[in-house]
């Protein structure tokens, strides 16, 4: 059992390293030009944001529509700090500051609202994110509605790649531990979960806070990669764009979130040449996929080396 888990973990590590080297090679040989690199980075940032949202929605069953608000906190922490401390240290520090503020904000938002159910929670978290945005819109340090420009670029694709790996490991391991079992129990039946000693408020908040923290990381990367941010980048529609990735991939499937982020990223890049028609095609694609695959591309399927190894073992034995 343990040995197989070690093997599986080793395989994952291998995948991460090979992926890194492969992209590096493609960049080096010029197969990946700046256009495609831009697409890869966008996909990476969306994965960071959407896996955190999937933890909240798919695993803890709390319908949050305010993810862009926490992303904004990370983005502005990085934007503001990098303007005074434009160093790698400043960048790392700004990510940490963003995470801390996002955690505090998530606790302030989560404690009163997480007892709301379903759509009421969605609308309350959406409202909270809008309040964050309006506040940023009216502050001096954030330069109001105009936003921040010329943010130094530290979030190159290797940085984004590494952080995609790190946040995914954190979220997936969280979801497959004591905490993960508690939040999934609450998702399936809150009354029964409480009856077996699970404190719903505490665990819902834990998932919400972790999701918010990773959203802040995504925001930091976004700010330092795009180099320009404005409050309008973090509105309701941006939260919804992340929700679309989660639902399209399959609520509760992290593999699905990866797949959906990649599919939508590629689709977006391919459709660039269609001009105004782009969003029409995107909308139709979205409706068609939902109508024909109502539980998302992968449903609740999760790819796992451990399972693959197990299956091989069984087949060998048979």
């Amino acid at each position: 059992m343990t040995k197989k888990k070690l093997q599986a973990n080793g395989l994952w590590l291998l995948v991460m390293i090979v992926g890194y080297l492969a992209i590096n090679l493609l960049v080096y040989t010029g197969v990946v030009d700046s256009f495609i690199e831009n697409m890869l980075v966008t996909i990476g940032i969306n994965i960071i944001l959407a896996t955190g949202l999937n933890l909240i929605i798919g695993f803890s069953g709390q319908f949050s529509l305010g993810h862009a608000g926490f992303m904004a906190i990370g983005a502005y922490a990085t934007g503001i700090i990098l303007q005074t401390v434009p160093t790698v240290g400043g960048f790392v520090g700004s990510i940490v500051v963003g995470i801390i503020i996002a955690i505090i904000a998530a606790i302030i938002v989560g404690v009163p609202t997480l007892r709301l159910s379903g759509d009421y929670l969605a609308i309350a978290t959406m409202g909270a994110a809008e309040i964050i945005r309006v506040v940023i819109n009216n502050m001096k340090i954030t330069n109001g509605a105009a936003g921040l420009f010329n943010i130094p670029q530290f979030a190159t694709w290797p940085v984004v790649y590494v952080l995609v790996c790190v946040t995914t490991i954190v979220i997936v391991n969280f979801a497959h531990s004591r905490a993960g079992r508690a939040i999934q129990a609450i998702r399936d039946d809150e009354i029964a979960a409480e009856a077996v000693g699970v404190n719903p408020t505490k665990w819902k908040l834990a998932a919400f806070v972790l999701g918010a923290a990773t959203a802040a990381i995504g925001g930091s990367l976004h700010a330092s990669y795009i180099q320009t941010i404005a409050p309008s980048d973090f509105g309701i529609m941006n939260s919804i764009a992340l929700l679309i990735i989660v639902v399209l991939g399959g609520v509760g499937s992290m593999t699905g979130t990866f797949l959906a982020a990649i599919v939508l990223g590629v689709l977006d890049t391919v459709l660039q040449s269609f001009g105004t028609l782009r969003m029409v095609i995107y909308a139709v694609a979205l409706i068609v996929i939902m109508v024909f695959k109502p539980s998302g591309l992968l449903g609740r399927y999760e790819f796992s080396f451990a399972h693959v190894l197990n299956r091989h073992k069984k087949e060998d034995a048979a």
Partner: protein
Amino acid sequence: MHTAMQQIINGLSLGSIYALLALGYTMVYGIIKLINFAHGDVYMLGAFWGYFIINKYHVDFIVALLSAMIVTAFAGMLIEYLAYRPLRNSPRITALITAIGVSYFLENGMSYLFGANTRNFPQVVKQHNYTAFGINISNIQLLILVTAIILMVLLQLIIQKTKMGTAMRAVAVDQEAAALVGINPDHVISFTFGLGSALAGAAGVLIGLYYNSIDPLMGMTPGIKAFVAAVVGGIGSVPGAAIGGFLIGLLETGVQAIGLSAYKDAAVYVVLILILIVLPSGLLGKNVKEKV
């Protein structure tokens, strides 16, 4: 005192638009538990229909309003038939994403076909301002208020007094049980979409007259505000939606009047969250406790 009264008049005008929109949200939610994200875009369709028919055929306000209501009613029923009906038994979040897809489709489809620019809504009713006791009120504001109230009274009559209204209430309580006593839920749901969309279409024409400008993205923000109004009122509750709409309208104009217009959206959401913390199902919503 005068300014306060003035703001109340302005707030009620804006609020009646939100209320008309919120009614559509709340009816659809009440019956199939779907946040119909495309509802604000149906309102946009109504405004564009009014723009088109007034410019092209020089019809008067009543014709523009009624025809817009008919057109949007059919648009709403068509959207329900094509996009939502196939998902009747799917997870609710899937239907929500589809609704967002429909919203994107309507916004961008209109931009693609007719251009994304803002255009002036034809002033089919000449604006007059009346002053009484130092308060300004325009005939358009009166028209909006009166039309909205007439429509709400009609809606209440339809829901409470007609056979279809009874069927709607039955399906909202229990779709399967309603089907067992001979109600066709598909018809009722379709009718509900038609009714809600007609109100949105009317709101579209009214806002065109009031603000004098329309564009394909005009439904986004009022759509979300109206949804917030429906939630504040207690989603699923028809009178709640009307109250919520007026409340949000008054709040927005009030915050603007005291010089905090930059914070008017934040104020709406603060009130939303406070109301939900105190009353988790809104002002008039039923707080159904799960049976153990």
